[in-house]
């Protein structure tokens, strides 16, 4: 342990582990830590009093300090005095709530996936599952929500909610949540969910974790642990919200599993009143759905044959289509293929395209860049066909075939057909 000129054992930051989150900067009681030019924290040893706080709070263990203790323990970070205040703030909140996002005139798939997850969490916490449903004519969907697993659905029907606007939905959902007071509120990390969640969290003055791929309950504290990818999918962060309620999170579509739908399930549907006082909502001048009848939603298929830059010419595409048709799947693609206009943008898989979770993903001539990989990790099985044995996609493939697609794919079609016959 290095000592400073006063003989105090000082903390040290390991620069290649620090991610520059600045948590230690904020926690250091004497202001001895700052970010340097490289965005990495640096301790001024002469200012350091050797309290070890930075080592306690660093989420990546980038601070080396001998007396380090209690690191990373959920809920260990707050002082006693603040604890009391916090306990008051979180009492009286109960139940796992889901915002039921609509998809046209039915409930969106992501809503049922979240209800499935909320059921699991509710079992652990021994509490109920609550649905929040906003719209103009959606009684049927409220019953659906019960069938998918809600114990109670709070339904707010109003002509002013027939169409989604940030302001009206933000106001309505804030009021509902404030009345019902769930301990957790989950929303889909969709266009609408992400637009809405930020409003509600700000209005309720609570924490919101974005784009989660994993949720669980911490055994000791009963808090919701929310895990999400950051830095473009390069690292995962587990986040919790101790002293504010509800604990809010948006969750990516297709990462959670819907439960079994049971039309006989019983649950309460509670109608809620709402004074619609908002003025000056935006006016929709034009609304265009670009998904025409013949376009495919790749996230809906059990099998995806994905064309990468190494397999997107006139010769390959018919082959890939044949394989997809055979397996009841669809052809999707990587970004360069969509960018060059060979396939429409709707077919793009990836960080800037769609997240998919088919039973079988077959990547043909796809190298497997990180921005592509993050969006296929929910696939049950991944097959990669590539000429390059070093291609990154092989790192996550269940089965890799090293070879030219022009030889491999026709053979695969032939053998799949034989297997299906037998």
């Amino acid at each position, binding site marked *: 342990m290095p000592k400073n000129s006063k003989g105090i054992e000082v903390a040290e930051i390991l620069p290649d582990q620090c991610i520059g989150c600045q948590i230690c900067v904020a926690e250091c009681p004497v202001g001895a830590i700052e970010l340097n030019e490289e965005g990495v924290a640096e301790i001024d040893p002469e200012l350091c009093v050797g309290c070890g706080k930075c080592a306690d709070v660093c989420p990546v263990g980038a601070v080396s300090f001998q007396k380090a203790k209690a690191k990373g323990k959920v809920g260990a970070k707050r002082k006693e005095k603040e604890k009391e205040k916090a306990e008051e703030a979180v009492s009286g909140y109960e139940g796992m709530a889901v915002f039921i996002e609509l998809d046209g005139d039915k409930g969106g798939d992501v809503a049922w996936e979240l209800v499935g997850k909320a059921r699991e969490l509710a079992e652990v916490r021994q509490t109920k599952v609550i649905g929040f449903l906003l719209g103009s004519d959606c009684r049927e969907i409220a019953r659906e929500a019960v069938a998918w697993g809600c114990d109670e659905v709070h339904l707010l029907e109003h002509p002013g909610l027939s169409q989604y606007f940030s302001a009206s939905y933000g106001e309505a959902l804030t009021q509902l949540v404030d009345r019902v007071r769930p301990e957790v509120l989950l929303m889909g990390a969709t266009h609408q969910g992400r637009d809405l969640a930020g409003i509600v969290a700000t209005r309720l003055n609570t924490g919101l974790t974005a784009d989660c791929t994993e949720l669980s309950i911490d055994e000791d504290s009963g808090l919701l642990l929310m895990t999400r990818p950051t830095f473009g999918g*390069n690292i995962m962060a587990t986040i919790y919200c101790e002293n504010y309620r509800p604990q809010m999170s948006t969750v990516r579509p297709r990462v959670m599993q819907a439960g079994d739908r049971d039309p006989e399930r019983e649950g309460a549907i509670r109608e809620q009143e709402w004074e619609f006082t908002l003025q000056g909502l935006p006016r929709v001048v034009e609304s265009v759905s670009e998904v025409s009848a013949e376009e495919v939603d790749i996230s809906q298929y059990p099998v995806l044959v994905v064309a990468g830059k190494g397999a997107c010419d006139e010769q390959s595409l018919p082959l890939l289509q044949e394989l997809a048709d055979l397996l009841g799947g669809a052809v999707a693609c990587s970004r360069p293929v969509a960018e060059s206009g060979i396939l429409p943008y709707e077919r793009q898989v990836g960080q800037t395209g769609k997240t998919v979770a088919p039973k079988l993903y077959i990547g043909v001539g796809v190298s497997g860049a990180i921005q592509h990989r993050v969006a296929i990790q929910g696939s049950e099985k991944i097959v990669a066909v590539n000429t390059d044995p070093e291609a990154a996609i092989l790192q996550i493939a269940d*089965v890799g075939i090293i*070879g030219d697609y022009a030889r491999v794919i026709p053979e695969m079609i032939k053998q799949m057909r034989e297997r299906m016959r037998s």
Partner: protein
Amino acid sequence: MHIVCLLKQVPDTAEVRIDPETNTLIRAGVESILNPYDMVAVEQAVRLREQHGGMVSAVTMGPPQAEAILRDALALGADQVYLLSDRAFAGADTLATSYTLFKAVQKLDGQQAVDLVLCGKQAIDGDTAQTGPGVATRMGCSQLTYCQEVDWVDPKARTIQIKRKLRDGFERLRAGLPALLTAELELATPRRCSLPSLIRSLQAEIPVWDADSMGADRELLGLKGSPTWVQAIFSPQPKEPGPQFQAGEDSSRAVSEALEALFRDEDFAEKLLKH
């Protein structure tokens, strides 16, 4: 018109790598850049000023070296920039970040009434896309996320019309000013900086605002004002790669072995092949 751009300095995530041995993030040597979405926002702001006159202000909340991106903003055509920097801001989540940025917008509004606030759709490091809606909510203004085009702004009638992306298409919305927009990459293509603006940007003094100069409540700032806590950060579990099969001139054997491996799990074979 007074247009405010909110900018964030981010590590170039395309360059962030994981050390395969220790399974940790290698940050050292990775360049810090202006968030690409925010660069687009600055370009759009400058275009609107060119059409309607007025002023483009840009602010960022960050450590002292974040002033580099404010110089970028000046080079791209912003008129004035401010660095929001204070130890009290450190460790902010999006709730505390949006509060701090809101206080800055309020202060800028005192200089000259703010008509538009432009943000990026999301920052490429934190990736939450929550800051924009947070600021808009605090301002109580129109919130227009996922903007792909600004059709027009009418400062007299106090309205704006934009095209915004939806999950499966787009919509055109007409909304009142003030408004906050978050920019998709296709909103505008940033111009190449001219030499004079580049020189001006390098020579400019960058003024700094701290918590007190914005009249901010310290309880709501930084780590203190942040409900969310990061418990742990880790690299995604690398999956054990499955078997590989070499297909040469004759690929039938490789394919046959590969399918054998794939369908070893009978449930999976059943589900997939019988439909």
